[in-house]
């Protein structure tokens, strides 16, 4: 273990030192090859121009290399692999996609993902908005927001343990140590094994993600609400609007853009949801989702890379519309710069 700590420290020094050495050294080298000082006027201007051509690439070079290896190449390779067999060597055409259309597990996963997509972003955004509005009106709102925000720092696995403890089931007549079943038994209901109830268990898993992500929605929306010009609200009050009208007709329309950002961000997160399902049910009792199914195929019986890649492509296809929208937005914003 000491060796491990030592190697970690060593890597930090090597990594940071290496970066510094590269950027400093490459810059120095450029100055040496194309000197701009101590040479005649035209040569200096020429060399400065050459430096200007090369230096940006020295700056973005390392990032581009890493991005290419870790993201751009894999995206192309995954598409490529989805037309190959389990080992990734024999071309099988669209056989994996045909399998994807017929496979009942995959269909179940897609339906569950759609359910997640329908519920989680909406619930997080709605709850986040409500909490943002309410906490703005009370003196201890900041503390309240901090506490609701807190689960965002908790890992999905940690949150799964926290909620598994809440859903814990004990046989009838025994003391229920899970909070949910204890409450239900207290009011005379029947304790249930919540995470193995087909269909409904999806919702019990979704609650975990909603619990984590509502804080995110709340913080972003809260800051957007602060940006609403006060005159619009005052005018509405003078015109005799009630709180609900002010909320729905004055506030919400003005932060529509932010709501869209929050919604899409959580949508992407939901498409990739993996840890919660793996730790809570591992896809049993009809609770499978795409990301967990893909992980399953990556390692099941030595791994089927072709089918795994196909599932990744399905997730990617769902993300593409959001990706295009993001790039368009960004182009609009940076157009002038």
């Amino acid at each position, binding site marked *: 273990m000491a060796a*491990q700590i030592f190697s*970690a420290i060593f*890597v930090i020094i090597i990594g940071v030192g290496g970066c510094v050495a590269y*950027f400093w050294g490459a810059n120095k080298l450029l*100055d040496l090859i194309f000197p701009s000082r101590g040479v005649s006027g035209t040569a200096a201007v020429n060399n400065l121009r050459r430096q*200007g051509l090369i230096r*940006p690439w020295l*700056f*973005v070079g*390392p990032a581009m290399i*890493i*991005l290419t290896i*870790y*993201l*751009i190449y894999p995206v192309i390779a*995954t598409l490529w692999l989805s037309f190959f067999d389990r080992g990734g060597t024999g071309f099988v055409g669209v056989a994996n996609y045909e399998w994807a259309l017929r496979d009942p597990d995959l269909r179940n996963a897609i339906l569950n993902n759609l359910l997640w997509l329908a519920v989680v972003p909406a619930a997080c955004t709605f709850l986040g908005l409500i*909490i943002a509005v309410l906490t*703005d*009106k009370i003196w201890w709102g900041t503390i*309240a927001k901090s506490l*609701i925000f*807190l*689960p965002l*720092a908790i*890992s*999905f*696995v*940690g949150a799964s*343990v*926290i909620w*598994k*403890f*809440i859903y814990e089931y004990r046989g009838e007549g025994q*003391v229920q*140590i899970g909070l949910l079943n204890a409450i239900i038994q207290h009011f005379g209901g029947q304790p249930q094994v919540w995470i193995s109830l087909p269909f409904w268990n999806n919702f019990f898993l979704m609650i975990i993600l909603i*619990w984590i992500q509502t804080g995110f929605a709340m*913080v*972003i929306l809260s800051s957007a*609400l602060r940006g609403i010009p*006060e005159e619009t609200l005052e005018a509405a009050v003078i015109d005799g609007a009630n709180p609900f009208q*002010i909320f729905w007709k004055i506030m919400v329309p003005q932060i529509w853009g932010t709501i869209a950002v*929050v919604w899409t*961000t959580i949508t*992407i*997160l939901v498409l*990739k949801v993996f840890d919660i399902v793996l*730790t809570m049910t591992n896809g049993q009792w009809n609770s499978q989702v795409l990301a967990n199914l*893909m*992980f399953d195929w*990556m390692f099941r019986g030595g791994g089927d*890379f072709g089918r795994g890649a196909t*599932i*990744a492509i399905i*997730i*990617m296809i769902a993300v593409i519309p959001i*990706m295009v929208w*993001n790039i368009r*937005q*960004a182009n609009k914003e940076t157009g002038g*710069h």
Partner: protein
Amino acid sequence: MAVATGNSFASRFGVHIAVLVFVAIWTIPTLGILVSSLRDKDQIVASGWWNSFASSSQTEAGRLPPASAQAQKDGKYVIEGNVFGDGAKRAISAFGIKAAAPTQYPAGTAADLGDGVSLQVNADGSFVLASPKAFEGDRGQRVYYASSAPPKFTTDNYQTVLFSEGIGRSFMNSLTVTIPATVIPILIAAFAAYALAWMRFPGRALLIAVIIGLLVVPLQMSLIPLLKLYNGVGTFFGVPSKTYLGIWLAHTGFGLPFAIYLLRSYIAGLPREIMESARIDGASDFEIFVKIVLPLSFPVLASFAIFQFLWVWNDLLVAMVFLGTAPDQIVLTAKLNALLGSRGGNWEILTTSAFITIIVPLIVFFSLQRYFVRGLLAGSVKGG
């Protein structure tokens, strides 16, 4: 924002109550595992954690000593002793001799078992079994009793989990993964962000678009080719394919788009005049970056560092694909996931392990919340 929405006392009161309910729902689950991790492991299963400050009662069964332990006393055959063995600090409220009626007799009273045999169990656990005839057989009398124990809090669970369940080791592994994976991307991203914000070169707009596109590319798209690549590299050089170096680079790669995006939008917003006056003074881009941009960007660098730290620390997927599950490599999240399988019912182990897993993010989060929120607001395009 001072909105006069319903000035009545009732409506203001309602807002307080509503927020209180939300806060309760969002904090009670975490509180549950914190309290449970500090409870005695027998009490965790005997009562809900919300009752942990009350005495917990449980029904237990025991067997009295066999006939060989009997003694003659006042013309009777008597077996004496304590059901708890040697003095546990619990109190018996009732006892019985049938499983169907475990609390038939109140503690301290003598129960008539028929044939003149009587059994008395006292609150402190001491019992007297008396009979006019000699006891026979080598199996003692079965006895059931309801006992209650005072609340008991302990740090034993932490000791067990840290040193014998391997969580302590995993904690070190998580630190080993997280710190380099947080530090390495910062400089690489900062240089790229500066170039994309303030230098003019062909292809810049395309590069920015690619990075924004990569922000939302699901991690799942990278896993299989990288796994193949790592296996290939491992076989080619005859080294293990699952190494810390591999996961550091993987996290660096996956963190870069967000890092560049976040830093670029901040650096692009720095005042143009500072850059231009420095340039007129003869400073090169390198000097401007190191002496002006880097110090001014401290807040956003801190934001990114916190994000990357939390994301790497909390990650399960990348660790499961690129690291092994041997004790020298398994990180906290993966270990916790493994414990969920192997220690499914041992809540003292699970709650304690979970709390150790989340304590570092919570400390980072609470101490640096301002930077975290700033990063969140600046980079909310990122998909997580």
